[in-house]
């Protein structure tokens, strides 16, 4: 990618950030908002920098990222093979599909009470919540990817020596489904990252969700905003990284 192209992609985000800061400051100025309700951008920036310098911010980021990454990897390990099976075998789909359709509309938030009861207030409960949030995008995209494989490619694979189910799977179906699967991986990381707040509502002592919840309890809205802004910026960066991965699998069609 050329430097000019990169700049052209980043520029809109800088404009958007600028616009948000202007509106934010205007609201603070004209409504004379109390600092505990809406701190001005400058104060929030100072808190942000202080937290960054003290290293605390990175501890929170590390904790949250660690949870999302572990839950996401767990999701990939379960949802991708299950999705491949559902997409490939009609019989598996018939059995599993209704179960999935029943569970899919239930928000990860609804699982919090059970997560606490089952896993206690340690790490596993939080990871469970994020697992739920990341599971379905991966599963559904994997199923769609496998089902969307052009049948003529499967036939081409068969007449070119993929004479076992396994060879056909690894040589044709998986690579053909890969672009759709990678889209699912990207979307799921986004939903998992968004679910971090819900997960860290469950008695966390560290993490960006904790930072937000704690900021609210001690009436430090600047901490809340720092938590929110960090989640937003990291979300964009992670999505950008996944987009690069996506493009590698997109074959230019």
């Amino acid at each position, binding site marked *: 990618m050329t430097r000019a192209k990169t700049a052209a992609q980043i520029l809109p985000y800088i404009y958007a950030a600028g616009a948000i800061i202007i509106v934010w400051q205007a609201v603070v100025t004209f409504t004379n908002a109390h600092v505990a309700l809406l701190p001005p951008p400058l104060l929030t920036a100072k808190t942000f920098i202080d937290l960054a310098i003290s290293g605390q911010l990175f501890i929170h980021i590390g904790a949250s990222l660690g949870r999302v990454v572990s839950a996401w990897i767990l999701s990939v390990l379960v949802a991708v093979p299950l999705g491949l099976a559902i997409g490939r075998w009609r019989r598996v789909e018939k059995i599993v599909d209704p179960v999935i359709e029943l569970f899919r509309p239930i928000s990860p938030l609804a699982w919090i009470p059970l997560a606490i009861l089952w896993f206690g207030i340690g790490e596993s409960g939080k990871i469970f919540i994020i697992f739920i949030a990341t599971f379905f995008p991966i599963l559904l995209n994997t199923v769609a990817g496998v089902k969307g494989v052009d049948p003529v490619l499967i036939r081409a694979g*068969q007449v070119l*020596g993929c004479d076992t189910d396994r060879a056909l799977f690894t040589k*044709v179906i998986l690579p053909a489904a890969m672009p759709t699967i990678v889209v699912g991986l990207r979307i799921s990381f986004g939903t998992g990252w968004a679910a971090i707040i819900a997960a860290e509502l469950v008695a966390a002592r560290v993490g960006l969700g904790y930072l937000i919840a704690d900021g609210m309890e001690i009436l430090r809205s600047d901490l809340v905003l720092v938590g929110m802004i960090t989640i937003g910026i990291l979300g964009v960066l992670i999505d950008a990284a996944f987009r690069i991965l996506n493009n590698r699998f997109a*074959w230019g*069609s």
Partner: protein
Amino acid sequence: MSNAPEADLNTKSISIRNIGVTFKSEASDAVEALCPIDLEIPAGEFVALVGPSGCGKSTLLNVLAGFIPPSVGTALVGDDKISKPDIDHGMVFQDYALFPWLNVLDNVAFGLERQGVGRDEREARALENLDLVGLKDFAGKRVHELSGGMKQRVAIARVFATDPSIILMDEPFGALDALTRRFLQHQLLAIWQRNRKTVVFVTHSVQEAVYLASRAIVMTARPGRIKLDQKIELAHPRDFSAADFRAYEKLIYDQLDEELAKTFNLEGSGGTFRD
């Protein structure tokens, strides 16, 4: 490589013995796609299958490829019964069926890898076959960078690379413009004359059939059966405008027109046709 046919050619005969196909569905009555037919294709023959849409010529090709089992009868390649897809029975598809995640070279080498050919030899043979279709310089390109005609040339290189004993072609040039089509017909013929594989070539074009084939088979409207089995005894390269070329075309068109009339009459009365 010389232009003379090599001694150790891999090419086999095809025997179609009483092959019939009936499609059964839950929703409607069984549809007979192909009447039981018999056909003997000697090794090295280039057979064109011509017929109206829905005459079962693609069905027959799919049986020969091992994609669908016949309802009755058996098909043999050499002495072996066709029961499933086999790398020894090559196929070229109308919509190319190249693997878009692989580059041109790896597409051509795909079958060789499955045959267990080592990396260096695989690449050498893939390049050799790309050279036959004039695309050696495109080996490193991605599939989406190619035009339709180039894609089909890659598919032709891919099928010849594994040296199958028969090659099945399902309207391979049907999606191409007239000029590209002419060029590819010429190229295919040049390769076939060199290695004399048994070819079964499905086409809608009578001109294409007469230009390429050593034998043209006209099939009837559904359920398909053989209406005309005509040897084409013209020396290559054939001239589209020559009188004897025209005579073969007329012979085939006369048979086809009867079938087309039947097809359209049926459609007019509410019959439906699928290929």
